[in-house]
């Protein structure tokens, strides 16, 4: 299904401490969008606002002109899936059951073979089938991250939100996960929005990049227009060399800008 996501004037703060100020953007269907910005700039908060994990104090989020802030929780979960940065579980749960939870918006109490089949398919897709019966808590950080991505994939939502999905992955697995997400976006025609720290990874894979600073969007557009030496200097206070590599800007941070 083709779906368009719009955020209008999102305002949010923890206890009257403003974090997001009038955030606006619009994302066309079947796009991979990354949100970049310094630590504490509000990337995770924005993602949580979109998924209504926290409720924005103002503004609205529209999916296909339907307002997310007025939907029931279960409907939100049918439209949006979310991959947290990490997750701890107090009680032991195996990987299979952890991923099966993502089917919650679609299944009845008994569950079905079809749902289990979908979990197996995603396990195979992410190449973690052999971990299916392992305890989630005993996996490495990167393996856990893949399991959380798998849980969001079986949720089969129109929009996938990912909070730094590659932060714990080695370079091979970073490319693996990014490729998988890009392919899912294209083939299922869904939208993926992810917070990312690696600017080069963002530049390589994104259709569009949103750059944030202190709760505001300072630049948005295709990688070439956002990943520039000027933007990086003003947003990150880092002097960087930017070179094009097969039409995508690549950056090499050189030194901090002090004062």
């Amino acid at each position: 299904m083709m779906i368009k996501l719009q955020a209008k004037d999102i305002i949010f703060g923890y206890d009257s401490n403003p974090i997001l100020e009038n955030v606006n953007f619009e994302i066309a269907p079947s796009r991979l969008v990354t949100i970049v910005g310094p630590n504490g700039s509000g990337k995770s908060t924005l993602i949580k606002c979109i998924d209504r994990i926290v409720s924005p104090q103002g503004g609205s989020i529209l999916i296909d002109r339907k307002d997310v802030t007025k939907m029931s929780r279960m409907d939100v979960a049918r439209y949006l899936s979310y991959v947290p940065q990490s997750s701890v579980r107090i009680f032991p749960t195996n990987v299979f059951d952890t991923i099966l939870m993502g089917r919650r918006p679609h299944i009845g109490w008994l569950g079905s073979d079809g749902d289990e089949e979908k979990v197996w398919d995603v396990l195979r897709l992410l190449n973690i089938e052999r971990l299916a019966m392992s305890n989630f808590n005993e996996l490495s950080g990167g393996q856990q991250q893949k399991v959380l991505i798998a849980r969001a994939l079986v949720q089969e939502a129109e929009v996938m939100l990912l909070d730094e999905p590659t932060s714990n992955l080695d370079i091979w697995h970073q490319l693996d996960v990014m490729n998988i997400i890009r392919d899912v976006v294209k083939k299922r025609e869904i939208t993926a929005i992810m917070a990312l720290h690696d600017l080069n990874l963002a530049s390589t894979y994104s259709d569009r990049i949103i750059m944030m600073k202190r709760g505001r969007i300072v630049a948005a557009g295709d990688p070439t227009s956002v990943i520039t030496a000027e933007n990086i200097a003003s947003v990150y206070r880092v002097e960087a060399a930017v070179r094009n590599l097969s039409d995508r800007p690549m950056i090499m941070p050189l030194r901090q800008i002090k004062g």
Partner: protein
Amino acid sequence: MIRYRAFFHGKTDAGLSRSRRAGKKSGVELAHERFKFIRLFFVLSIAALLVLLTGFIITLGPLNISVADAYSALLARFWPDYFHVETLTSRVVWNIRFPRIVGGIMAGFGLGICGCVMQAVLKNPLASPFTLGITAGAQFGISIAAVIGVSIFGGPYFIIGNAFVCALFCSLFIIALAAIKGATSENLVLAGIAVNYFFTAISQLLKYFASDEQLRLMTNWGMGDLAAFSWANSRLLLAVFVICFPLLLSKSWDLNIMTAGDEAAKSIGVDAEKTRIFIMIVTSLLVATIVCFMGTIAFVGLVAPHMARMVIGGDHRFLIPASGVLGGLVLMSADAVGMNMIAPTIIPTGIMTSIVGVPFFMYLMMKGKRKEFWT
């Protein structure tokens, strides 16, 4: 590239899935099948064990009754044409031994499922009706009801209602406390201990001022143990069970998801706060009713869910019934030991469960320091 294909063409690939189901399964798929089988098998076998143990425990006591006679006596009630026993045996079974066992099973079952769901919604392995002070709240409600006077408002409903309101009050207090940032599992249990002391003190104080009639009510309600259970009050208890058990079981998926944390739960469509409050209301009702009829029974609600989780993992569709049945098993066994170990002296049920439960509780506390339980 091959591994992508199965996924993206989801529906058209049903054929591929089917061929896999029919033929070659990978090792880990077989392991998963085995796991599902063991899980179901475990629940069924502990249920069977419960029935077997019932027959065995009926035989314990001064009057000699064989296992066969025990079952015959039970079944003769329903099919008098097929089973025959002596009147005396039947009387002892139906009036003395079986009620106590049924009481134990019901109380253990109720406390087991309460502990199980409380641990899930509070994400706290040390949670149980007793350790969080909810039984103490119910107990306090009974004392208050006795002092205000049951005769005014009439009957058991007022006492149970009052116990429920007080238990609920404790539950909401615990929820509020758990919502505070940085409140650890241990903090909640400490709060539970404080609540326990507080309510026990007030209950004692009330006793001090109570008239004889009020005292009689207080001891009749809630201070007893399994000996206080009778067929007359089983009906109300059963009614509460019939309402609460399906309600809790229907929330199985939400409970599974809640153990992953509130944020994850919300993103999968579970309203974490609502579910938590709903679960605590239902458990408060169950706990209050159990305390009214059988008094405070410690630790069963803590131990049973952990035992179940060790064997069958975290799926509450199985975990809730398994915790209940294990709770029943633990309580009826502990009680049978207490009844018969140094007969004719009877050790009260609460003492027996504490003797079993406290070492276990300490073990959990120690393990919790490493932030993992049964892993």
